[in-house]
């Protein structure tokens, strides 16, 4: 029991420590990347319990800012293969367990 308690504590610690946004793959230009990353962080923090709302917020903001037809996937376990417009993809981790993938394809 103590072991699992400790493990949980460790996990919480780990999540706390490693909740910085970590970009896994992107080909966006610098400015766009920074803006998108911050938007994702804001959305995930706001809708920490509801991935769908977070994704909706991100998608709508991206559509307004950078043009139509963005797609957003937020989750903890998924695999994907997408066709995206060049220089319009961001794949990042956040919060120790969330993965966010944002891409544009009309």
């Amino acid at each position, binding site marked *: 029991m103590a072991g699992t308690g400790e493990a949980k504590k460790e996990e919480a610690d*780990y999540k706390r*420590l*490693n909740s910085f946004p*970590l*970009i*896994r*793959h*992107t080909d966006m230009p*610098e400015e766009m990347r920074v803006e998108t990353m911050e938007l994702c962080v804001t959305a995930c923090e706001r809708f920490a319990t509801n991935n769908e709302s977070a994704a909706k917020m991100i998608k709508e903001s991206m559509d307004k800012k950078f043009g139509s037809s963005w797609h957003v996937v937020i*989750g*903890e*376990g*998924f*695999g*994907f*293969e*997408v*066709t*995206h*417009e*060049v220089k319009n*993809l961001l*794949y990042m*981790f956040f919060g*120790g*367990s*969330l*993965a966010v*993938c944002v*891409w544009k*394809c009309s």
Partner: protein
Amino acid sequence: MDKGDGLDRGKKSKPSDQLKLTEAELKENITKVLNTHNPHAPQNIVRFNYKEGVYQRVSVDHTAILFEMESNIVYQDSEEGRRLILSKSTFLASLFFDLSQATPVEDGGEVEEAEEEDRPDSVASKADKKGVKLGNFFHFTDRATQTLNNPPRQINCQTAPPPRSIFSATANQWQIYDAYCEELQKQEKQKATLLKKETDKSKKGVLVTETQSTDLTEVAKETKILERMVHQNTFDEIAQDFKYFEDPSDKFRGQEGTLLPLWTFQHEETRGLSVTALCWNSKYQDLFAVGMGSYDFCKQGRGMIVFYSLKNSSFPEYVFPTTSGVQCLDIHPQHFYLTVVGFYDGCVAVYNLKKKSLEPVCKGTPKTSLLTNPVWQVRWQNDDIDNNHNFFSVSADSRVVSWTLIKHELISTETIRLSVNGGLSNVPDDEQLVNISGGTSLDFHKQTDHLFLVGTEQGKIHKCSIHYSSKFLKTYNAHNSAVYTVKWNHFHPRVFISCSADWTVKIWDDTIKVPVFTFDLMSAIGDVAWAPYSSTIFAAVTIDGIVRVFDLSINKYEAICQQLVVAKKKTKLTHIEFNPVHPVIIVGDDQGLVSSFKLSPNLRKTPKVRSQNSKDLSIRKNPSLK
């Protein structure tokens, strides 16, 4: 009375011939009647009528026409007017009905058959509301045309779609965890060592850190070459002149020569500082060092050591700022990256150009430094037995000190103490003070290593040797005031030159106590230098901005070239040096500007080589000896 006249009001003036009536007559009412009867028309005109054979009265018309104009206006209530109203208004009424009530157009036809009394009234009223303009048929017609409409065309276009690419990945908890761990490790590494930037993009997606820096250090070497190329292109003419230009007018000028101005070297940070020392590098003959400081006793501040290359005159190669003004410097003849510098506050320092730092390798301070005694001259010597570098310095506290560089430390040993009487170093200090005189210049013999000359503030020159620390070998009463520079001739073993604050330049043979040649230059002298390619040519600079070049084999009394080299008249020239290889001299002034000049062919004549070279030269120089 009119009110707006401007005449006198309230004052009734009677004309003298006015009728005088009684009161009753004044109050009488007289009626006036207006009629159309023209009073001027004659009433009694008669004409003879031939038909009836009698005189008949002709009546004259009483109406006078004042204004007549033909117009198109038709009176509304006349026959014609009514007819016009009818015809126009039916058309308008039909329109009006269509718009307001969506009744079929047949109403228009029915209207015509309807009662005319009603119609015109209602139509006229509506027409009045609309404000229809009635036009006379004879004067108005309606006419319509249709302009050309451009035919419509269809244009289609299809833009190229933005490029797309495919990306795939998996998002698992363990992948996320691994990624974070990696990132943390990396951050720790970065904190431990200097920032290492890696960019490695593969299809899987490796970590991308912030690596978008515009750091030029990786291409520093290439940018330097580029800079030099740009510089060469900008100053192309000067580079061509430097290499190839030989002044053709020298043939016509007799013995005289000129100096052709080449590059000028100036650095912004050296504003306010004067050039206090110049030295060429023996290995890289386009590199020279400039020491910056101040000769002004009152204005002592910071200093600088600046290295310029002839290949880039707009920016120095190396810059070393110093806290105290630089007074002298020397570059090691063999180890070309070592430079020794003497400061105004009495310190000496050795700089290593190979090292990237701006600090000297080592610094030495004088032992008794209560007063600032500037170090006036430093000179490298050959390495001693243990292969340690060593150099000599002469300073205003009348000491010639030998410094040895042992493992980044400078160890000083006093070589000789200058005094008026002649090197009595056993006498204790307080008695010695009266007799000492500060040293101002130092030069080692080119062939014999241990011999050197020291010039003093008193105007004496002492010939000394490293091995004899207490006595001078010889003393010359050279000048009346401080000796600024002494220099041995590069070729002749016994000849040296000295210049001093008493405005003279003197040439000596070291066996003779009196100078062989004396030149009075009419102006305070900054520096003299021997030419490295000839034993008879030397140059002197003065504070009036003139460079004088002398060639003793051509003209023993006058300079063969006298040229004003500065733009502003107040600039004083402080130092001059000949390039060891190229026919170029550099001249420093008190504004911190270093100018380079090319010597014209007349100034570059090497003396003819004869069998007994030195003897002939000495004979030529000393006619009195014979």
